């Protein structure tokens, strides 16, 4: 259980796919103009990544090494098609907003990267932990980024038609935050913050790592 938790926790901070590994950036920056879109993008990635990690890990003894990448892609593409059609049926508004980004989850480096680097060599239980941790870490960052951009850029956060929080009328909403430059600049500051936080806690993590040797086996 401790092993499971430590793999799970990795994705959230020390190995966060967005702020530390810097993969899967395109979708993050593009859909983070609205908390609603970012939230459902996160949900889609949680589903696709944990399911595909589990399946890849289950079939790992059957997949020949030479053709592993096409096999991974087919597994991932099946789950993405499930998300694509489900979202089109039940959440048409969100689906229109996310647009091309749903099919593009197939080529999201986070998912293929985790299948290749982790799930292909690990038992199902740990692959699932890694998938869940990584995708939750991804969702956390994307929702924080979207919340900052939507709140300060438009002065309010609207989630599925409900207004969650709003600034008073006189707040001069700087629309630039909602445009492309805003995404890059806000995300730059988020990375700097994550770097500072990881740097501050790294001494503590090194000490706890000495007690659980699986950390090394996990890579």
């Amino acid at each position, binding site marked *: 259980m401790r092993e499971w938790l430590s793999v799970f926790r990795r994705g959230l901070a020390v190995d966060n796919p967005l702020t530390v590994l810097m993969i899967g950036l395109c979708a993050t920056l593009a859909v983070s103009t609205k908390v609603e879109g970012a939230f459902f993008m996160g949900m889609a990635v949680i589903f696709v990544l944990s399911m595909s990690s589990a399946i890849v890990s289950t079939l790992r003894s059957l997949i020949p090494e030479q053709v592993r990448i096409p096999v991974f892609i087919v597994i991932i593409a099946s789950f993405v098609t499930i998300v694509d059609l489900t979202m089109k049926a039940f959440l048409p508004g969100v689906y229109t907003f996310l647009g091309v980004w749903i099919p593009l989850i197939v080529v999201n480096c986070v998912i293929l990267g985790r299948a290749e680097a982790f799930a292909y060599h690990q038992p199902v239980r740990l692959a699932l932990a890694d998938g869940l941790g990584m995708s939750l870490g991804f969702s956390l960052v994307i929702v924080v980024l979207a919340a900052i951009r939507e709140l300060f850029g438009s002065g309010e956060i609207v989630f599925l038609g409900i207004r969650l929080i709003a600034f008073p009328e006189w707040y001069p909403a700087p629309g630039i935050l909602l*445009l492309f*430059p805003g995404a890059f600049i806000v995300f730059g500051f988020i990375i700097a913050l994550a770097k500072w936080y990881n740097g501050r806690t790294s001494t503590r993590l090194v000490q706890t790592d000495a007690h659980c040797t699986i950390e090394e086996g996990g890579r």
Partner: protein
Amino acid sequence: METLQHFTLLLVGAALVNNILLTRFIGLCPFFGVSSSMDTSLGMAGAVIFVMTLATTATWVFWNVLLAPLGVGDFLYIPAFILVIAALVQFVEMYLRKASPGLYRSLGIFLPLITTNCAVLATATESVRPGFFKMGIDYGFGFGEALVYTIGVAIGFGIALLTFAALRERLEVAPVPEVMKGTPMAFITAGLLSLGYLGLAGLFGL
């Protein structure tokens, strides 16, 4: 004359006004991954122009000959396109290794990376389903239009990547606060560059 004007607008629109990297955020992984030096960026830009053109040609034919007439395009296009692109990149790599070792050495390491570059899949999808990005789906770029559009997108990718690589090389020697060093500063630079591209919006009424 009409057609020439149409194609020019398509090319400029795809390359500059709707720049794939800086105004649409597609293909950012290589943008931050390889842009730390000018040489690798040049290699990557060349490889993208080459593969993207081939990929769109293949998927356009695949869509118009197989998927659309059979009526299975709507739910099969994701796995079908990505497999066509992956197979194509694999073949190109094998062919180049035999036929042109020089080109292989300069493009080689970037080719596998390109399979998972969303820019290629996005452009291939858009060329058969124009307006997909805005969800106003209408089928039917002709082959010429699809090709010109793709070349425009690829050139835009190259221009943005090379500009950014030049900026980052200059940034190496600039005094940047300790915590902002490296990627955080690269992102803020990209933000400013993207601000510049924003100025092109509305050029020629595009």
